[in-house]
């Protein structure tokens, strides 16, 4: 069953199909929030809010629309609301809490996170969408209002910038 078929079934009242979508998207959404603020508890709450809104606003899903784009739009709105309610939000000042599964790569992880924290938000977002959400260029373009060519250029520049920051941080 595709994401779109599952979401259409949910919109028609078959709520059990929401579990399929939750299992497919929980990890990518958790990471989406974890890399936009540092607190794991917050990231978990924000992820829950996305799925809750998905259920509450299921009737607004149009049959055939890309589910990934639709749910990412909800995630972005959830995050904007979070920013409004937390004006003291300090961006990515701290290293994210990765949970119990986290192991010996902690140091490397910290470097990467520090590098990500220094990226301009437009670069960080495009990397998170393509890497953690596995979104296609078309879907990213649709979400961010960019052409496919611009998405590719932005991904490239974001990676270049991240590389410079990452290697610079890790060599200090």
């Amino acid at each position, binding site marked *: 069953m595709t994401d779109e078929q599952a979401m259409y079934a949910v919109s028609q009242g078959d709520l059990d199909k929401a579990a399929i979508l939750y299992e497919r998207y929980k990890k990518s959404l958790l990471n989406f929030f974890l890399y936009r603020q540092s607190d794991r508890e917050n990231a978990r709450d924000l992820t829950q809010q996305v799925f809750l809104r998905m259920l509450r606003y299921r009737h607004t899903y149009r049959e055939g629309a890309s589910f990934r784009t639709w749910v990412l739009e909800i995630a972005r709105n959830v995050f904007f609301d979070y920013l409004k309610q937390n004006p003291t939000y300090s961006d990515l000042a701290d290293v994210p809490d990765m949970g119990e599964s986290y192991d010996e790569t902690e140091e490397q992880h910290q470097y990467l996170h520090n590098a990500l924290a220094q990226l301009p938000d437009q670069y960080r977002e495009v990397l998170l969408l393509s890497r953690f959400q596995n979104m296609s260029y078309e879907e990213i373009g649709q979400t961010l209002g960019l052409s496919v060519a611009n998405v590719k250029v932005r991904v*490239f520049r974001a990676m270049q910038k991240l590389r410079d920051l990452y290697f610079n941080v890790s060599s200090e």
Partner: protein
Amino acid sequence: MLNEQIITDYLMGHLSEAERVVFEQRLTSDPVLRKEVEELRRVWQDLQNAEAETDDEMDAVFYRSLQGEKMLETTIVALKPQPWLTYLKYAAAVAGVAITFWLGRQSAPTQIEYRTITATSPVPKSIDRPQSLPETVAETVNLTDPPKKKPKEETISQQIATLRREMKMTQELVILSLLKDQSASERLKGLNYAAALNNPKPAVIQALLKTLREDESLNVRLSTIETLERFKQTDEVKKVLVNQLTQTSEPTEQTTLIETLVRMRVKESLPIFEQLQKDEKVDRSVRLLAGSGIGELAMITD
């Protein structure tokens, strides 16, 4: 394609086989490019490895929420009271059904009543038209009880008129309410209802003019122009349409307004048409249309 786009496609695995072979040949012959691509690949992979895992507690919260939603779906949602506006929206339809039903009730019993009188009276048998029962019935009734029919018909027509007035009032209320709705699609629905009205009240016209001046949705404004054109074209309507043409910079709206004003033969719009025709900032198609509008209006006024 730019170098940046090709490198991104290569790292993401989006190049075709032929493109990939060509690009890898370039990499072997260009050490600077190769170093760049290798570094970017490493960052990309490290980013993937940095992905956090979910946990059982998170799952438990979601499945509890899902259970809650399922309960809501099966119980509370079905019992949730409808808002006042929903009743109002369907009131016009219910009133229409009620009138139809009532008219049926008013015409059918009349016939049954007269037949009963015919059956109990021997008089009709003396009339020389036994084959046509309805006519016999009618004549019999006229002969036996003529004064009762006229007052009854008057009452019926009065009641129909009252019901029609009430239905129109309800429709107008619905339209005024929908035009204030936050959703553009609801406002468009209100405009569709308004378009079906004959000779609407001034309040409806005023609401339409306000919508044309203030609505943020282009589609709603375009539909308002079409609706206004259907009604009596008062000076005020013409004035607002002309004024709107001076305010908007949307080529679609300008086009619709010019066409409408030409059809309505509003010669007061000529100076505005001339301004638009001369203004180089205005869309070319609008300027051309304004030019042809000037010609048409000039012919009409002559």
